[in-house]
């Protein structure tokens, strides 16, 4: 079978579970992410998206189950996993008193790369995220969109094969959001596999090849957008589906999630 017909699996998640104070946040979920694809994890607040991504990023240790990233276990090969992943947290996880360049150099230095490699990668990424003319400004002087772009760049310093992005467009204006979509598209073009969590339907529709909808710690539906919409037609009494949002509401309910 050709590689194109059956893409390699980069991340294989098996029965992953995590509880906090005996309250289950993620209940034995399993899914696979193909190499080079953008995988969207969609769900309302408290669905378990961030806990899942935290476990895959080795920030949290699973209570049970495992996840293999490029064949390396998050349980047993934690350091090896850390070396090949990139993580873009929901927060602007940057040092606001440092400049964009200083931030990237610091995060790059953690991967034991040479000074020259770090400098080159820093320049490359500053250009990539459109901040090469803002290198002397401190991050606290940046706009929300600039901070978000730098937040993404910091996750790319080690040229990760697997980039995890936890709601990377929260709190920014539509122009900046469009800019970030474009940026993510270019990251994907470079062959990076992306795990993307969000509760914005439009961006998941736009960016993701495969989508998993999570609620109450479990994956309640997954597949390509087309597959999910077909699923909607088959399993729910809704005529003429208008899109992912309608399916999302139908699957997760319309009650508030605070």
């Amino acid at each position, binding site marked *: 079978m050709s590689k194109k017909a059956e893409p390699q699996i980069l991340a294989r998640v098996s029965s992953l579970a995590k509880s906090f104070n005996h309250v289950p946040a993620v209940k034995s979920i399993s899914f696979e992410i193909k190499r080079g694809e953008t995988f969207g994890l969609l769900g309302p607040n408290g669905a378990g998206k961030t806990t899942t991504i935290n476990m895959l990023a080795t*920030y949290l240790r699973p209570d049970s189950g495992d996840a293999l990233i490029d064949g390396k276990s998050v349980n047993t090969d934690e*350091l090896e996993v850390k070396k090949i992943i990139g993580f873009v947290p929901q*927060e*602007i*996880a940057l040092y606001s008193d440092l400049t964009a360049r200083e931030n990237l150099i610091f995060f790059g230095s953690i991967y*034991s790369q040479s000074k020259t490699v770090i400098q080159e990668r820093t320049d490359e990424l500053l250009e990539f995220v459109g901040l090469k003319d803002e290198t002397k400004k401190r991050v606290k002087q940046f706009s929300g969109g600039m901070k978000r772009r730098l937040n993404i760049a910091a996750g790319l310093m080690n040229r990760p094969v697997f980039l995890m992005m936890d709601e990377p467009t929260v709190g920014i204006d539509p122009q900046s959001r469009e800019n970030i979509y474009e940026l993510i598209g270019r990251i994907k073009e470079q062959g990076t596999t992306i795990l993307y969590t969000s509760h914005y339907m439009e961006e998941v529709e736009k960016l993701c090849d495969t989508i998993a909808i999570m609620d109450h710690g479990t994956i309640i539906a997954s597949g390509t957008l087309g597959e999910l919409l077909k699923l909607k037609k088959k399993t729910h009494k809704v005529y003429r589906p208008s899109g992912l949002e309608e399916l999302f509401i139908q699957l997760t309910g319309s009650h508030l999630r605070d």
Partner: protein
Amino acid sequence: MLHAFRVFKKEMLITLRDPVALIWLLALPIFIIAITSFAFSGSYGGGKFEVTIPVINRDSGPMGQQLLDAIGQQDTLKIELKTNDQEMGLRQQVADGKTVALLILPADLTTQVSTGKQAELQLLTDTNETTQLPMVTSILGSLISTFNSITLSSRTVVQYELDTQGLSLLPQVGAIGEQASKIAQTLQQRPSMLITETPLSTTDTGYDPVAQNVPGYAIMFMLFGVMMGAEAILMEKEEGTLRRLLTTPLPRWSFLAGKLMSNFIIGFSQLVIIFAVGHLIFGLDLGSSIPGLILISIATAFAANAAGMLLASFIKTRRQLGPVSTFFILFSSALGGSWWPLFITPQWMQNIAKVTITAWAMEGYSNLLMYGKGIVDILPQVGALLFYGAVLFAIGLKKFQFKES
């Protein structure tokens, strides 16, 4: 270790980016040291000052009364005439620290001075009193000196009158000057009036306000600096940078080691700078052992850093840290002797004070700066601070939560 150094470098860069906070941490103690040193030391002069001392005048001649009249003509030192039978009670008052000094004019004051002999005035003092006593001795010294000059002039004239059998003095000015010079030499060797100071206090504390205030406020503001470091750790947690770092190959111990190294360097530098300013501007005597000062400062910065680590481990948010750390610092400073010397506090307070880093550090600094002790003498305090720091570090590191539970 290289990772820890990278975190350290980043921390130093961030700290130096906000120099205002650092400047305040240095400027405030210097400002407060200045105020308290002025306030607690009469030798620095300043506003209206008045002190009253009891005097027993045993002299039946005019000299004693003239001296008392001269004292009465100035505004600062006031006297209360007492009788011989009150002497024992007054001595006890001085010994108990209730009266700053007792002046006794001898019975033979007039006789001695008028016959060219030396009269000895007794000043019984409470040497633990550092605010008024320097003023009393300074004024009395100045008055006695004036009296000695007058005595010199009088004796010169009288002597010349005797030598020339009452002839006119005017044509003989040069000879009078020669005579005066001879008598002045004699007076220099043995002045007519001499004040003998006798300390009556039960113990000599060697108290020096600058040697108290400089280390006291340096430690207090170093604790504030260290708390900023603890806040920086909590900030990494709250702002998500710690989460990001924990998904990288950075070892956890490197994160804390880098942070703590940076906090330690800042705390230690703060002590060094404040002591340097204390020495250069306030005339602080650095004692006989600079290595001892460095050693106690290292131990103090280490222990304070450990306390910061402990707080960062038990406190969950920066909002909580503010009031808790302020309470901790003010409590340690008050109890541990940053604001006043521990020896003036009751014994039970001195015993309790040993639970604070400040008390051990102040004891070490006082030994070096006030009592002229050396490095070997402060080893118990250094040991206590290092032990204290090690215990707090161990608890802090054990309890520190890198991740949400």
